[in-house]
């Protein structure tokens, strides 16, 4: 794991090469290094990190997250891995929920194809430039993004003796 100072160095390099306001924060807790990036510069930061002095050439996982109480609700995480240095770095962006759009990273990391479709299917973050932006897990005509925290859990209320009478059996 890049330790705290290593993370600051990376943040510094990104600020110089990509844009000053690209990095909005760095967080280092329990040997997990996370680099927070502004949504507009995600693609350039990832491209830079891919060709940086110490390259992070593998994107292991791309997943979404919903921090409901906090304001920019939707978060998209890019777990980068460098196989030479056996090092992991997480690049995180925070998006509002009204019209979440992000540029796709498919040409940089082809592995992002299915994972971007899953983030779109579950959280509604639209990735521009993705060749086949459709739902991957839910049926095509499903409304709503299930893994947002305000989406109801669904399922049936469990039958007990006290609420047995409330729910009609399927055959009556």
């Amino acid at each position, binding site marked *: 794991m890049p330790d705290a100072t290593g993370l600051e160095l990376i943040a510094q390099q990104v600020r110089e090469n990509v844009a000053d306001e690209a990095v909005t924060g760095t967080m280092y807790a329990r040997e997990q290094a996370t680099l927070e990036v502004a949504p507009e510069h995600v693609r350039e930061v990832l491209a830079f990190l891919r060709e940086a002095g110490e390259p992070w050439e593998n994107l292991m996982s791309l997943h979404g*997250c919903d921090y409901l109480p906090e304001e920019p609700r939707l978060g998209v995480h890019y777990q980068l891995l460098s196989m030479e240095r056996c090092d992991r770095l997480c690049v995180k962006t925070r998006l509002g929920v009204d019209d979440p759009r992000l540029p796709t990273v498919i040409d940089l990391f*082809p*592995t992002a194809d299915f994972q971007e479709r899953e983030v779109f299917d579950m959280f509604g973050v639209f990735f521009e430039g993705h060749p086949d932006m459709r739902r991957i897990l839910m049926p095509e005509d499903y409304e709503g993004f299930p893994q947002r925290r305000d989406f109801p859990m669904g399922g049936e209320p469990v039958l007990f003796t006290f609420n047995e009478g409330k729910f009609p059996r399927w055959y009556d």
Partner: protein
Amino acid sequence: MTDPLSVPYRERERSVTMEPMGEEPTHHELFTINIGPHHPATHGVLRLLTTLEGEVVRDVKPIIGYVHTGIEKSCEDQQYWKAITFVERMDYLAYYSNAHAFCMAVETLLGIKVPRRAQYLRVIHSELGRIASHLFALATGALDIGAITMLWWGCRDRDLVLDLFEMSSGQRIHTRYFQVGGVMEDIPPGFEQKVRGFLELMPKRIDQYEALLDRNEIWLQRTKNTGILSQQRALELGVTGPILRSTGHPWDLRKATPYSSYEDFDFAVPVGSVGDNYDRFKVRLDEMRESVKIIEQALDGLPEGRWITDDRKVALPPRHELATSMEALIHHFKLVTEGFRVPPGEAYEAVESPRGEMGCFVVADGSSKPARVHMRDPSFVNLQALPDMARDSLIADFIACVAMLDPILGGVDR
């Protein structure tokens, strides 16, 4: 007049069909069919929309989601130690790896240390799970290619491993044996002798599989030089596990980032050369041999001591203490009713599952329920490599590719 048979199939086909040929693209010969959700060769409910030209597969489009059970959403509604049961049901052949990744992520968030004996027990059960998973993969993989004996042998030996799981945790599959902070129960007294008995038997059985398949001409022709994936393309697609190692890249998380005391054992990482189906089969076979070595070393060096952490905030106090000490009673009550609270934070921990890197990303918001659980499933990512393997190959080779890719649809669809 040129010799009709030497003209390649499409040109010859062109002259037979009635429609005016011209430079019109030949796609009208292509025939799209669903090797759909219910199919013997898809190892579960995977729908492969394949465009065929006669017997040659031109394009494959995997369509998934047919067994999506919203496990990640259900985990957000459960306490931490109840989420282990949900997480285990994702990749239902490597349930120990799921639980291991989730427990490590929560332990990183909690900042607790797992005692050495629990780490060794986790290694023993993970490696036994790896053997069972590879056995089942080879059994159904060989069945797809036509060798049904491998199914009987594979299931027979897999039952031996499941007996060991049943002895240590009481259940054959989805044993819920790993607990946050260690292992649920210490292993029963007779467990070591039974595992040693199994370890003597297993290499002989693996030699039998090798004798059955390795010199079988049909098997060699069906798997050699079919479904070749270049190492560079595999790395681009994020493929990990036996498929990446079969292309020659020795990336194994147990060696690269040793977790849970894997650095104490020396074992080799089997690596293929060409990256075709035969190499994947060989890598899985040799991995089983390596797992046997790991378990032997783990059993020899099994330290004494606690099988779960002593931190009473996380682990249940032993029963007899409840009668005497008040604190144990309070800890017990707190844990059983509400579960332990995890300080806010995020953690991503990865584990080497039989199919590749199984990563678990947990976000904690300070309550006793995880805010977000995401499992980076190896089959989900490896499935993207299927179109690259199967393009311009015959249907028989395409089925061999799916068999050797060994996708577990529970993990793909989560």
